[in-house]
C-alpha cells in the first residue's frame, strides 16, 4: 500500500522542552490568522512539513473543518507567486522554546491520521504544553478556554481567561488537543470570541485574532508587536458589520 501521509524534514530544530502553538483553517479563520502572524512576526522558521493524500485543495463542502465521509474534495496544488505549493501542515520554531504548527484540514479519511502524526512529532520534540488557537461563536468578546485538565483551567483564571464553551470542537486543531492528551502532554485551547457568518464560516475575523494574540503574548510572555493587525482588523470589522446589516 502506498504511503498516505508523509513527513519532510526541512532542517534540524534545536528545541528545549518547547511550548507548541497550533492553529488551523477554521471558524472565522481566527486560529489560522494567529499562527500566520506568529510565524511572520516572531519570526519563526520552518523545520518540518507533513504532506497527505487526504489534503484537498478544494473541499467538497464548506467549511473545511467539518469533514464528511465519502466527500473527499479534490486534490491539487495552490499557486503562490506563480509557484505550485502542495497543501501541508508546517512546523516552525522560534528560538529553542516555541514551536508553531500551521495546520491543514484533511478529508474525513485523513483527519485522525494527520492529528496522530502531528501529536507524535510534538511528543518526539519534547513538547511540554500545546496551546491551540481557535475561535467560537457563542457570543461575547474576549478570550475563553478549555483544557486537558482542570489544573490548567485554574491557572488561566489568573490571566482572566475563563471557560464558557460547551460542545464539539471540530477539525484538526481539536483532534490534536485530543491526541496529545492521549500521549500525556498538557493541552490548552484559547478561543477568540467571534460572530458566526453562516454564509462564509471561515470569513476572517482579524479583531478576534488580535485579541487572542494579545492574550497569548501575555500568557507566554512573547515579544509580539500586534500593531500590524490593527488597521486591517478595523477595516475587516466594518466590512463584517455591514455584511450583517448592522450600521458601521
Amino acid at each position, binding site marked *: 500500500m502506498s504511503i498516505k501521509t508523509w513527513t519532510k524534514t526541512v532542517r534540524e530544530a534545536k528545541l528545549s522542552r518547547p511550548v507548541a502553538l497550533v492553529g488551523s483553517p477554521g471558524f472565522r479563520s481566527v486560529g489560522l490568522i494567529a499562527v500566520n502572524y506568529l510565524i511572520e512576526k516572531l519570526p519563526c522558521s520552518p523545520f518540518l512539513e507533513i504532506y497527505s493524500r487526504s489534503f484537498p485543495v478544494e473541499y467538497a463542502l464548506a467549511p473545511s473543518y467539518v469533514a464528511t465521509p465519502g466527500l473527499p474534495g479534490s486534490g491539487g496544488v495552490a499557486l503562490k507567486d506563480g509557484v505550485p505549493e502542495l497543501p501541508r501542515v508546517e512546523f516552525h520554531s522560534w528560538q529553542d522554546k516555541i514551536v508553531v504548527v500551521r495546520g491543514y484540514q484533511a478529508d474525513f479519511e485523513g483527519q485522525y491520521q494527520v492529528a496522530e502524526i502531528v501529536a507524535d512529532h510534538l511528543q518526539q520534540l519534547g513538547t511540554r504544553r500545546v496551546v491551540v488557537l481557535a475561535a467560537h461563536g457563542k457570543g461575547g468578546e474576549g478570550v475563553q478556554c*478549555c483544557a486537558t485538565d482542570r489544573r490548567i483551567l485554574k491557572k488561566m483564571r489568573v490571566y482572566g481567561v475563563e*471557560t464558557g464553551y460547551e460542545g464539539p470542537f471540530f477539525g484538526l486543531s481539536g483532534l490534536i488537543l485530543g491526541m496529545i492528551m492521549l500521549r500525556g502532554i498538557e493541552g490548552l485551547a484559547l478561543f477568540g470570541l467571534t460572530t458566526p457568518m453562516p454564509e462564509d464560516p471561515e470569513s476572517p475575523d482579524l479583531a478576534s485574532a488580535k485579541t487572542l494574540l494579545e492574550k497569548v503574548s501575555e500568557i507566554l510572555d512573547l515579544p509580539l508587536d500586534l500593531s500590524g493587525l490593527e488597521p486591517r482588523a478595523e477595516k475587516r470589522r466594518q466590512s463584517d458589520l455591514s455584511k450583517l446589516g448592522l450600521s458601521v
Partner: protein
Amino acid sequence: MTTVKIFKKPELTNPILVGGLPGSGYVAKLAVDHLVKELDAKLFGEIFSPSFPPQVLVRKDGTVELMKNELYWWRDKKSETSMIIFTGNTQAVSPEGQYDIAERVLGAAEEFGVKRIFTIAAFVTGERVERPRVFATATESELLDDLRRYDIVVMKEGNIGGTNGLLFGLAKLREMRGICLLGETSGYIIDAKSAQAVLETLTKILDIRVGMSALENRAKETEAFLRRIQELEHREEQPQPKKGEKGLFYIG
C-alpha cells in the same frame, strides 16, 4: 486504525452484552448510561476510531474529551448475572467504521464468553406519544416467542441503522443469541420516557432491579419544556394588539 484499550480484564462468568450508542432521541444512550450509573458498573475499556467524527468534545467544566466508545462491567453479588455494557459519546460515521466497531466489540465480548446480547435502539415514528411502546426483535423465532410474555410489540419489518443495529446483526453471524429492544420515539427530542420504557423491559427480562427516578425526572423536565414551547406557540397564534392599540396586559 481502530484501537481497543482494555485497562484491566475483569473476571466474568458467562456475561451478557448490553449495548447502546447515541442515536435517534438518544434513547439507547440514555438507557445504557442510566444502567451504568444505577448498577455502578466499572469502566474497563475504551475504543478509539478514525471513523468517529473528527472532533473533540468540550465538557461543561471546560475539560476536553475525545470521541470514544466504552466498555463497562458489572457483576451481581448475589446471583450469577454478570454484564458487559457497551456505550460511548458517539457512533462511527461511515458504514465501514460501524462494521469495524461492531466486529471489534463482539470479538472482545467473545473472549469473555458472551453468548447472549441485548442491543437498544430507537423506533422513530415522528409522533409524540404519552406512553412509548417497546418494540422487539430477536435473532431466533423462539426468542421472539419468549419475548411475547413482556409488554412488547414484535418489530417484523424495517431497518435498525448504525452500530446499534449492526451489533445485533453481526451477533447472529457469530451464532450469539441476540435481542434488540427499541423504544418508540418521535425522534425530535431527547426522549427519557422512551429510554425508561425500554429499560424497564430489559430489566424485567434480565430479572434485575434498577431505580428509575433519575430517568423519570429527566422525562418530567422534557415534558415541562415541551409544555412551555406549546404555550409559547399557542400565544403566538393568538391575535396580537395592533401598534398603538391597548392590549390586555396586566402587571401585578
